[in-house]
């Protein structure tokens, strides 16, 4: 018989070896032993683990050099802390372009330049005659309407200039883009080219011809089209080098008109440059109605004319200032992490650079500032709503023009000429999002406590994780109909037919108005900018490849950040019926608006949504959105895919489908309140009750499945009349599982208590008995007293009252030294008692308070626990530790806001678990905000010094600053590692499912545990699993558990805490805990996973003290001990007789 290479199994279970390194070495319990501690000190520091710094005295107190003092002073003045400074420097090093690469890029650019100016010319043809283009080459433009007057000929560019961030040295990795402006020769253009898209047609033809020539050149690895900022009228050509440099750089060619070709006054936002007659194909309207202005169209032309001058301006003002460069790089990284800079109408790096220039001009930023200070100033400016409310214009613009700009655009940021709006494509909601993010970031930077750098710059914020609810609109062609319904023809004309951009603004406005107080922030995804590869087969003229048309198959995603206070109401209160606004209200809400009479006598218009439970109330935005979209934009419900509550199903009770259990928990808590009132008023106890505290997950709203009142059917049980209790019967399935809710009851102080641990126990038992007697006598409650607790049956709920004596832990701690000095030493018993009677009630009440502040806490904590348990890891973690991790999501939500829906909270739980560095950081959960910044710093440094003695997972609360009591007994490093790996796998899977506009598919996938990692599977019979129906895949049929729906005549104490799988597991762990690990999902799991411990299969020499389940055999002439696997496998069946169906040994996993 050979040892199982379980080490490999574990590794196989935990993924790549690199991840495995993260498992803690030298920490945990072994570290407590003096000998091993000595060893770890002697060894070089364990990899990846921070060690307390040891500097010699001479080093610490040597005379400082001038340089050092300067450096320290600079850090103090320019940065937040030295850590931040180092971090920022590291980050910049990472994203900055190295000199070597720069040289390679420069060489490539020279090549490009040479090739571009050598492209052959083409003789003049009509614009509509595109036959001269070689076969397979199409114009990258949606040419509707096709007929345009004018001529085109190709001539090599008059000038090729590099513009933008590469020139300024602020482009950041990973994707480096070099913008190159190609000035088209004046001969190509004609007068009035600005009119009716003629300029854009020529521009596109110019690129098409260029692309055709460059595509044949072996220098380029790929030649493809993209669209500048997603604007579908402005294609640009992307060139990438061939070979190993392909990923290095992308050169973007932007054709632009010769300087001064367009007269700026013709391109002001009030002017029209797309004639309705041409665009709609109608004869000019005779009634003389003015043509609608085309501000966006004008801006797009204007943008081309200023490419060079802007580049020059930027380099003259901020060219050499290192701090400005760093600051802009940091801002770009930040925007990137928040997905704000990508897509159509994004808040691009260019806008940020211009903002920096503006702030320098207005003296908000000085060029000597550090990168961090630049970052702060820009964020500060962005966050301040009043000053940068809707508009911003540098001093040069004339006042009347500014009003025009506000009329035409939702966000105005004028350049120094006062004619170009740099934020023309940015929608109001994007702008609000930017502002919201800036404010959050400022708060984070000001809080100073946490690792701001990591959260601000390194944490990605994808939409699904940042917003409470997300909805997808699909297919996008529905928006075309919406445009017509909303009468947006001028906008369509302005946008050249891009109905997504045209409809986006009005739609978001409607939704924002409709969601009102429920909404904190509404954001929309920006349509991604496609890259059209230059292959003859895929012609860009296909509607697929034009940005907005390409999205026919695509989706528009909206994210809602909800306001929890607004979510509680089901009513939308309108104006009084006789007010003039009433008509407007009726029109806005359509048929949902009703006249209602209120208690104060007012008769008002109002909208009432159907929602009974908390979870339904959370989903009212769904009703609002579908109603408004159908009413105003003609988008039917089938096209709106709302992702708000698909995960709710996992924490829904057995029968109900409408509630996620918050109400049931509240009922239990109310019953507990009643009971505590009874206890307070109890007469006849020798000492009166001074405090009653809850100590059970139900009483802090975090029990996964809330208890229901039990009404046992007496025929199902064996009655034990003399003790008024019910017993389970052999011939029936296992009865329903009833877990008593623990309540700690403190008595008033008294000097009469004995001062001996054994005697205190007896006196407490006497109190328990008396309590049971009195409750029965005075209130007629069914009670059962034991030595340590009294079980009380009240309204179908069972409470377990534990009488506590404040001084008992102290008595247990007392140790008398030989000299007679009494000192206090922690013992296992005292710690356990302290935890149960002191810390647990405190924690319970703190989390109860948290639930009152954040109504989504319950859902998040329960989903998180459900998931951990479903992965069969539930027993490695205490209930409280998982609750605290969930609480951390609410108390320290940075860089997000506290979650308002279980879904987003759960995603962040997975993110936190999978990314938190448990080895080097304590998770600080600042309940009630009791810890100050200084205290947190102290905790962190204390943590480093004591790391080896602390458990693997350390959670610090204000009540528990040093010991991390809730994680003392687990998880072990392996279990935690397994959880981290599973979370890292589940998160992208779940996010992908939720972001899939076709519908999430089977949402329970991530809740199903991987079973192939276990060595032995013990399958259990559902007949004896009392919580069978709670399983992730709830069985269609299960056994009757002996409950009545109505209170029955029997008032005997139901069967308490009888759960055969748990009893079985206890036996297994006691008997085989040295040899194997056992994994089980307590919520209706049908299988126990067994993993052999790798060490136990090593042959050991015989020792009388460790023969547990082993057998002796001779191997190579020596007698060694190995586990008696065959007998053990049969023991599994013997110990669980009746419960175990089969024991499935996967012997292929261990070598025989």
């Amino acid at each position, binding site marked *: 018989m050979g040892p199982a290479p379980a080490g490999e199994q574990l590794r196989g279970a935990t993924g790549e070896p690199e991840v495995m390194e993260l498992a803690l070495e030298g920490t945990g319990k072994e570290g407590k032993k003096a000998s091993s501690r000595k060893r770890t000190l002697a060894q070089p520091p364990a990899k990846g683990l921070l060690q307390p710094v040891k500097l010699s005295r001479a080093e610490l107190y040597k005379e400082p050099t001038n340089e050092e003092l300067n450096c320290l002073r600079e850090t103090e003045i320019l940065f937040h802390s030295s850590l931040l400074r180092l971090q920022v420097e590291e980050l910049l090093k990472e994203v900055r372009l190295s000199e070597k690469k720069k040289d390679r890029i420069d060489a490539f650019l020279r090549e490009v330049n040479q090739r571009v100016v050598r492209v052959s010319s083409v003789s003049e043809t009509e614009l509509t005659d595109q036959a001269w283009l070689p076969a397979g080459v199409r114009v990258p433009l949606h040419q509707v309407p096709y007929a345009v007057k004018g001529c085109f000929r190709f001539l090599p560019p008059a000038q090729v200039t590099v513009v933008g961030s590469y020139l300024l040295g602020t482009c950041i990795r990973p994707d480096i883009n070099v913008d190159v402006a190609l000035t088209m020769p004046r001969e190509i253009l004609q007068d009035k080219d600005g009119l009716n898209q003629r300029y854009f047609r020529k521009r596109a033809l110019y690129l098409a011809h260029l692309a055709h020539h460059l595509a044949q050149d072996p220098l380029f690895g790929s030649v493809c089209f993209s669209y500048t900022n997603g604007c579908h009228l402005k294609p640009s050509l992307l060139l990438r080098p061939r070979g190993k440099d392909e990923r290095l750089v992308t050169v973007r060619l932007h054709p632009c008109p010769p300087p001064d070709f367009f007269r700026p006054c013709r391109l002001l936002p009030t002017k029209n440059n797309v004639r309705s007659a041409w665009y709609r194909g109608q004869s000019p309207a005779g009634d003389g109605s003015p043509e609608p202005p085309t501000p966006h169209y004008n801006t797009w032309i204007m943008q081309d004319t200023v490419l060079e001058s802007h580049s020059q301006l930027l380099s003259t003002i901020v060219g050499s200032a290192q701090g400005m460069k760093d600051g802009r790089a940091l801002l770009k990284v930040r925007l990137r992490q928040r997905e704000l800079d990508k897509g159509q109408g994004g808040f691009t790096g260019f806008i940020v650079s211009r903002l920096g220039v503006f702030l320098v001009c207005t003296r908000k930023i000085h060029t000597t500032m550090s990168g961090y200070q630049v970052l702060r100033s820009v964020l500060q400016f962005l966050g301040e709503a009043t000053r940068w409310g809707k508009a911003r214009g540098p001093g040069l613009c004339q006042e009347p023009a500014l009003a025009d700009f506000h009329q035409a655009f939702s966000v105005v940021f004028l350049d120094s000429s006062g004619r170009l709006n740099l934020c023309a494509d940015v929608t109001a909601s994007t702008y609000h999002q930017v502002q919201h993010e800036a404010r959050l970031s400022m708060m984070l930077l000001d809080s100073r406590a946490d690792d701001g750098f990591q959260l601000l710059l390194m944490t990605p914020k994808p939409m699904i994780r940042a917003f409470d609810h997300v909805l997808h609109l699909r297919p996008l062609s529905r928006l075309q109909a919406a445009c017509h319904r909303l009468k947006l023809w001028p906008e369509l004309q302005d946008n050249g037919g891009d109905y997504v951009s045209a409809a986006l603004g009005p739609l978001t406005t409607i939704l924002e108005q409709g969601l009102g107080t429920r909404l904190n922030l509404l954001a929309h995804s920006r349509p991604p900018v496609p890259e059209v590869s230059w292959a003859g087969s895929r012609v860009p003229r296909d509607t697929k490849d034009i940005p907005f048309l390409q999205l026919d198959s695509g989706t528009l995603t909206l994210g809602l950040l909800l306001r929890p206070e607004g979510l509680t109401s089901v009513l939308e209160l309108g104006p009084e019926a006789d007010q003039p606004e009433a008509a407007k209200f009726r029109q806005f809400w359509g048929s949902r608006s009703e006249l209602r009479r209120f208690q104060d006598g007012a008769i008002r218009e109002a909208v009432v949504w159907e929602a009974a439970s908390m979870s339904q109330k959370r989903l009212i935005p769904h009703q609002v959105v579908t109603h408004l979209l159908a009413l105003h934009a003609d988008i039917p419900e089938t096209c709106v895919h709302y992702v708000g509550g698909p995960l709710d199903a996992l924490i829904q009770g057995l029968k109900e489908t409408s509630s996620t259990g918050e109400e049931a928990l509240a009922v239990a808590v109310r019953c507990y309140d009643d009971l505590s009132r009874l206890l307070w008023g109890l007469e006849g106890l020798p000492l009166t009750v001074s405090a009653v505290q809850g100590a059970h997950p139900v009483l802090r709203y975090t029990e996964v499945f809330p208890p229901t009142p039990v009404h046992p059917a007496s025929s199902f049980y064996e009655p034990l009349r003399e003790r008024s209790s019910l017993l389970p019967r*052999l011939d029936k399935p296992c009865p329903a599982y009833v877990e008593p809710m623990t309540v700690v009851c403190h008595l008033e102080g008294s000097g009469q208590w004995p001062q001996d641990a054994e005697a205190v126990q007896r006196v407490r038992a006497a109190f328990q008995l008396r309590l049971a007697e009195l409750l029965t006598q005075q209130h007629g409650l069914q009670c059962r007293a034991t030595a340590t607790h009294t079980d009380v049956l009240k309204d179908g709920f069972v409470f377990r009252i534990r009488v506590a004596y404040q001084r008992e832990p102290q008595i247990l701690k007392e140790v008398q030294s030989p000299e007679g000095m009494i000192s206090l030493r922690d013992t296992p018993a005292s710690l356990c008692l302290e935890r149960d009677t002191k810390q647990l009630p405190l924690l319970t009440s703190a989390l109860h308070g948290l639930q009152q502040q954040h109504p989504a806490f319950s859902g998040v904590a329960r989903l998180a626990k459900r998931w951990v348990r479903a992965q069969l890891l539930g027993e490695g973690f205490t209930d409280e530790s998982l609750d605290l991790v969930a609480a951390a999501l609410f108390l320290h939500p940075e860089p997000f806001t506290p979650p308002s829906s279980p879904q987003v909270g759960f995603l962040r739980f997975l993110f936190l678990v999978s990314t938190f560095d448990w080895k080097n950081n304590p998770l600080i959960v600042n309940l009630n905000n009791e810890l100050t910044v200084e205290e947190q710093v102290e905790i962190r440094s204390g943590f480093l010094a004591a790391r080896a003695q602390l458990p693997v997972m350390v959670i610090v609360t204000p009540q528990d600053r040093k010991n991390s009591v809730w994680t003392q007994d687990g998880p072990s490093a392996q279990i935690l590692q397994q959880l981290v790996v599973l979370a890292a796998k589940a998160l992208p899977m779940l996010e992908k499912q939720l972001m899939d506009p076709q519908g999430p598919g089977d949402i329970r996938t991530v809740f199903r545990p991987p079973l192939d990692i276990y060595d032995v599977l013990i399958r259990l019979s559902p007949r004896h699993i009392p919580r069978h129906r709670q399983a992730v895949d709830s069985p269609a049929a299960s056994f009757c558990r002996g409950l009545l729906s109505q209170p029955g005549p029997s008032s005997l104490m139901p069967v308490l805490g009888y759960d055969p799988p748990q009893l079985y597991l206890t036996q297994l762990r006691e008997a085989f805990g040295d040899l194997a690990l056992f994994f089980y999902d307590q919520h209706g799991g049908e299988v126990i996973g067994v993993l052999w411990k790798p060490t136990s299969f090593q042959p050991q020499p015989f020792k*009388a003290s460790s023969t547990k*389940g082993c057998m002796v055999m*001779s191997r190579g002439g020596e007698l060694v001990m190995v586990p008696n696997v*065959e007998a053990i496998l049969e023991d599994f069946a013997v110990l669980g007789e009746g419960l175990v169906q089969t024991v499935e040994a996967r012997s292929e996993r261990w070598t025989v």
Partner: protein
Amino acid sequence: MVARRRKRAARHPEDCIPSPLGYAAIPIKFSEKQQASHYLYVRAHDARQGTKSTWPQKRTLFVLNVPPYCTEESLSRLLSSCGLVQSVELQEKPDLAESPKESRSKFFHPKPVPGFQVAYVVFQKPSGVSAALALKGPLLVSTESHPVKSGIHKWISDYADSVPDPEALRVEVDTFMEAYDQKIAEEEAKAKEEEGVPDEEGWVKVTRRGRRPVLPRTEAASLRVLERERRKRTRKELLNFYAWQHRESKMEHLAQLRKKFEEDKQRIELLRAQRKFRPY
């Protein structure tokens, strides 16, 4: 698994079960139905010279590796074929001394869940031990005539046993407290008697019950006193008063900064190793 069984069968004929030096191996199974068996490793109990053992020499059998479903009664029944069994004691670990025989209250010390245990079986006669050593198995823990409960049966009966009898509990508490009160009263009476009476060397013991209360002899109290002293001393001290003090505190500040800087550098090193500086 099958291959392994065959191999072992070939190597060891049934009558020769390998056992460590000085021990005999007896196969034991739960019932007829099981295929494989566990092995009890038994030995005559003999304490080494100089160690104290309360188990009777020669008559005691030391049994290792007793499976969890095997109770004291069933072990006594299984070994009764070798001779009359006087007592059986199951323990978690080998322990030379007999455990204190005082009956532990079942209310306050519930029986732990058993795992693999060791047993000390005391026979009436020494011949029982030698007979047991020669015993060939396999022993069956649960037979038709003497069934042993396991699984659901056991849990249900355990649950029934765990439902407490409040009267019995009350009686137990009362008797214990009576004894306790009596003990305390006696101690107090004794203390009162000795109060102020000097011992043979002339020392008088000071107790809590003296006329003047004294400081209790606890660690917390002594720490409190020390702390008070320390605070008194610091109040008198002058901070940053002399030039050297000023200089030193500045230096201290600098040293703190340096230390912090080193720590930060280490942290950065670690983060760099984990590639935490790639924002993509």
